[in-house]
């Protein structure tokens, strides 16, 4: 066997073995729990999807993000139809998707390095791609079912980039049909990415920079393509001007931007804080500190000015320095490649880690941008290997050691994510000042009957979250008592701290309480007691908007359970008062007016629903429900 053949075989074996290793490493994570948004986004999956019609209905009904993310939701619906393994199935699919993404990352790195002139050092992109695949920072993406949205968006963005790099091999050129196919593929995968999760849009500026910095708008013979140069310049100018515009508005006329709702920060503060968070992400990718990793980072200290905390200043200065170094590096071709890697990371974060009023810190936001770091490392190693021949093998050996260390950390992180209790306790261990981690601990303790300790953590969570409504804390106390199978704590004191006008704000907590009460999972707190408590408290709050709309809906469901249809109808009216075109509310009203034999009101609401049906505003399930009444 020739040496070349042996080397190829070895490379191929490693390319197969590494993803298998990742699959083995991630496999315990299949046993992990559903979390946070899994419940709100996927909770209805089991109830709603039974066949293709309901699957389509479910897919189109999702309201996550401005575009509804139908591609991602469809993947869950399809999975339900084909696999139907619940949370375990979600995680299995996510793991497979992660392996596929890992393969695509390796492929992309091979292509990029090859275009950068390093086609011979294939082990470097393989190892860097494997480092991405085995990075512990991505455990909270892969094993958090609903983050399939981010993973699918990444999958399509990678396909866009890979196809573009192939397209630029053939185009401009004589093989037009192949170029046409690739172009169509790029458009389709880009759209699919966009409908998987909206931040797939970042692939567009990355394509511009790829053309400007790496491909240099040249054809296969090395000649510049004039129209591509012009197009790239326009794209680049739009990118720079857009960034400058955003920065100017942010710092000069921040009042033009909408104030974040339900967030403890202004957009300026968010932008400043993100300068530190981005460095932290880089640190967590390069030298992970798994003890801090997890879902909850609501204890992250907010930057309220350049000097508060002082690390903000260092972070901003470091980014400025990086910008200056990048400007210098632009003079050399090799330098431009490195600038592209840095820009990949920053542009990848441009949607979620800049001025949109989203939460400050989430690890899954690095799923796509992180590739920039691994690309940068691959480029640096390849450059070093070319400048100092003989250093590439030891550098690759060091890289392999790094991959092993990453895999060990990821492995421990997967273990933590494979057990709901362990995950909750670990969150608190890593983030003792996180309100959410304290809430999880409260639930954990309550589920084992330790109500006093649970209430202690619940109170701490309330103290840590300045935006929490006191009524929500009290509502939570009831849920915790319910979970602990203990009587309602201090019933007389509940909701007394609620400000005038709003009894509580957290609808999910109210729904959880009522759902438990109705399902009989709350033997210590009878449904009648909950009903009378809300009746009493709401009586003192005469305003029909003393609860959020869905809060009234939840109470109406409780009263329906208790067969207090008049009260249920009153709550439904209050619900419809706030959401007059809610199909759910109208269907509830139809139900109660039917039960209370109120033909006039029933007819009115029926007519309204029929009108909405004819306008195509009802989902499949809603149409089915309405049909029960029309028959």
């Amino acid at each position, binding site marked *: 066997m020739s040496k070349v053949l042996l080397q190829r075989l070895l490379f191929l074996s490693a390319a197969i073995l590494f993803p298998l290793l990742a699959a083995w490493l991630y496999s315990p994570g299949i046993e992990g729990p559903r979390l946070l948004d899994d419940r709100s986004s996927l909770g209805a999956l089991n109830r709603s999807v039974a066949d293709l019609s309901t699957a389509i209905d479910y897919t189109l009904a999702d309201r996550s993000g401005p575009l509804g993310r139908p591609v991602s939701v469809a993947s869950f619906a399809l999975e339900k139809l084909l696999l139907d393994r619940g949370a375990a199935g979600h995680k299995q699919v996510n793991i497979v998707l992660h392996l596929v993404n890992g393969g695509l990352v390796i492929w992309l790195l091979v292509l990029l390095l090859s275009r950068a002139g390093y086609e011979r050092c294939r082990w470097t992109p393989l190892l860097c791609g494997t480092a991405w695949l085995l990075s512990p920072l991505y455990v909270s993406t892969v094993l958090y079912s609903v983050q399939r949205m981010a993973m699918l968006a990444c999958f399509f963005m990678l396909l866009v980039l890979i196809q573009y790099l192939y397209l630029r091999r053939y185009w401009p050129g004589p093989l037009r049909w192949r170029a046409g196919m690739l172009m169509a593929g790029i458009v389709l995968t880009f759209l699919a990415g966009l409908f998987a999760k909206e931040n797939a849009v970042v692939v567009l500026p990355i394509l511009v920079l790829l053309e400007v910095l790496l491909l240099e708008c040249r054809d296969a013979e090395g000649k510049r393509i004039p129209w591509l140069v012009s197009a790239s310049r326009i794209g680049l100018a739009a990118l720079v001007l857009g960034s400058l515009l955003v920065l100017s508005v942010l710092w000069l006329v921040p009042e033009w931007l909408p104030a974040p709702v339900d967030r403890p920060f202004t957009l300026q503060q968010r932008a400043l804080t993100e300068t530190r968070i981005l460095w932290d992400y880089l640190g967590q990718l390069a030298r992970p500190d798994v003890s801090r990793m997890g879902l909850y980072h609501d204890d992250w200290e907010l930057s309220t000015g350049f000097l508060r905390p002082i690390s903000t200043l260092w972070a901003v200065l470091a980014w400025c320095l990086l910008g200056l170094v990048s400007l210098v590096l632009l003079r050399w071709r090799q330098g431009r490649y490195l600038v592209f890697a840095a820009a990949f990371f920053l542009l990848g974060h441009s949607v979620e880690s800049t001025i949109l009023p989203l939460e400050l810190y989430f690890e899954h936001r690095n799923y796509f941008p992180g590739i920039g770091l691994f690309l940068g490392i691959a480029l640096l190693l390849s450059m070093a290997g070319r400048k*100092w021949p003989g*250093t590439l093998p030891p550098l690759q*050996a060091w890289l392999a*050691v790094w991959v092993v260390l990453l895999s060990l950390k990821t*492995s421990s992180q997967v*273990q933590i994510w494979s057990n709901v209790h*362990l995950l909750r306790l670990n969150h608190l261990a890593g983030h003792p000042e996180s309100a959410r981690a304290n809430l999880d601990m409260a639930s954990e303790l309550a589920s084992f*009957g330790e109500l*006093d300790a649970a209430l202690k953590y619940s109170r701490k969570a309330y103290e840590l979250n300045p935006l929490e409504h006191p009524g929500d804390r009290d509502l939570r106390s009831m849920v915790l008592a319910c979970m602990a199978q203990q009587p309602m704590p201090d019933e007389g004191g509940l909701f007394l701290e609620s400000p005038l006008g709003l009894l509580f704000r957290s609808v999910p907590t109210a729904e959880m309480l009522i759902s438990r009460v109705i399902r009989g999972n709350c033997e210590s707190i009878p449904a009648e007691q909950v009903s009378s408590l809300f009746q009493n408290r709401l009586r003192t709050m005469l305003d029909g908007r003393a609860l959020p709309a869905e809060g009234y809906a939840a109470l109406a469901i409780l009263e329906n359970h208790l067969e207090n249809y008049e009260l249920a109808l009153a709550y439904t009216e209050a619900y419809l008062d706030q959401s007059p075109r809610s199909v759910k509310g109208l269907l509830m009203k139809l139900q109660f007016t039917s039960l209370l034999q109120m033909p006039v009101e029933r007819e009115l609401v029926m007519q309204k629903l029929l009108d909405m049906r004819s306008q195509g505003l009802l989902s499949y399930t809603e149409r089915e429900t309405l049909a029960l009444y029309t028959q």
Partner: protein
Amino acid sequence: MVKLTLEIDKKLLTILGFLLLLTLIIYLPALSGPLVFDDHPALTTNPAVQIGGTIFDEWRTAALSSESGPLRRPISMATFAANHAAAGGFKLEQLKAVNLFIHLLCGAVLFQLSHFILAALGYNLKSGRAVALGAAAIWLLHPLHVTTVLYTVQRMAQLSTLAVLVGLMLFSRYRLRWLERGPATGELPAAALWLSLITYIGVYCKENVALLLWLIPVLEITVFRGRWRGVSQPRLQIISWVAALTPLVLVGALFLFSYDFLVSSYAERNFTLEQRLLSQSRILWQYLSWLVLPDVGSMGFLHDDLILSRSLFSPLTTALAIISWLMILVAAWAARERSPLLLLGLLVFIVGHSIESGFLALEMVYEHRNYLPSIGVCLGLSALLYWLGDQAKVLSSNVPLLIFVLSLAGLTALRVQPWTSELALSTAMVDNHPESARSHYNLAYAITRALQHEGSSDIRAETREELETMAEEHFREYAVLESSPSGLINLYVFASRQKQDYPERLLDKLPQSIEGHRLQASDFNVTILLFECLQRKECSLPGERVEAVFDLMLRQNPNSVTLLVQKYRSLKLNDEPAARLLYILDRARQLQPGNYSVNGFYLQELAEQAKLAQAFEMLVDWLRIDVKRRDLARIKRTLAFDTISAE
């Protein structure tokens, strides 16, 4: 005269292969030998390393499961885990076969390293090959290394030696190239990267791979001598000297600025820092004499019969040893041009011993400590014997070398024999060291184990009685020689198990023994034996007496977590109030918040007392403290809530 080249022809390979085969044959009978001493805490009583291997994270926790060294030697532990996973348990033959394989591999690398060194020193083809082979043969077949190869847990020392040998070989290979033509572009950073990688990986086998960074300048000073691109480079010589002297300066600074810390680390030893350093000067001579003139009768596993050096002149040999070390070093330096291998051998020997035979509060003597330091001596010895043969001009220059190697092979074959069974090994230890308390203890223990063994029912009553008497005698000998609580408690446990009618009387002297003795690891560990005896109801000591024993020991060593844990376990047998039990464990947790056993018992206690909220909070603390996540598997098992909720 033909100069030594770097090529290795078939003939040379055949001889090397034969040498490796001979080593293999000599060691083969002992592959089924027993596990001893530290093998048990590291392997047989360490559940974390006993893995099936199907879950990725098992490998991580197994690798981190050792208590040895500051870095916990994860790579070595991973190899043990691999042994377990491959065989579905710890199979003695497999464990020792891996050790033997590493030994052979080290021998082969040593041959290659010697080959490079001799080429750099300008040896001719014939003598260079003979000396390189001789060095490898002496090292491979030396009886002093039996206790490293067959003592399973010393795979750690073997792997670290292998890493150092590979590092030195790599350095020599690069340096040979640079001697005449200098480095090609990128060769210098490539060499630095490889050597740093080997050091990094090596220290996770055993920390003394760090010595590679000291041995490289030693090699530069003694062998390559600053020669670069065909000329002598004074700047390189200066750099080498600075690199060689830096560790000495660092140690000096440590003594200057952290002397109290160094002294305090000797709290659990029955010797002081000064006594250790003085004694080591004699011990190093002992090691050297074992290497040059192997006396298998004085070799052994345990050397606690060693007479401590309490001052320069007590015993007098201490001063003589120090003076003679200085003299031999000066002589070797003076003769460095004519006999560079003498200086190399001595410096490698001393530097190689600098960690384990220096100021660290480790036990006094262990033969495995010579595994790495002996490489230089073996090379020097081989060169000396070849030179003698060459000078004598009788038959062949190789004759003295061959005779020495064959003698070593014979001695090693003899030394390997007792390693076939625990009883034979313990008997040999007592025969070689009748004044060693621990050897007596081991023999007594080996006999009791043999009596409890499955097939022991076939032993005739008379023989059984004889063996029991023998065991008791050795336990008594141990108690007399050791004059420690450990001796008395061991004897008490043995007598209780044999249902003798006097056992409690044995403990009458315990208070004096505890008060007049600096408690050591063996004293703490014997409390585990006492607990087990009480638990099995073989010992019938009243609760108050048990508590009194622990209180006495704790008064002297209030910070011993082992004592606190065993006190807790013993009191729990007597159904002491839960609050008291938790108090003891609380104290232990304050001392060592991340202690695996303490946390386990604490958690169990909380669960039994239905203090679930406290249990959860304790688990959060445990997760916070366990930064490396060593105990993650255990914590996860605890949180498999089917069990805890049932409790």
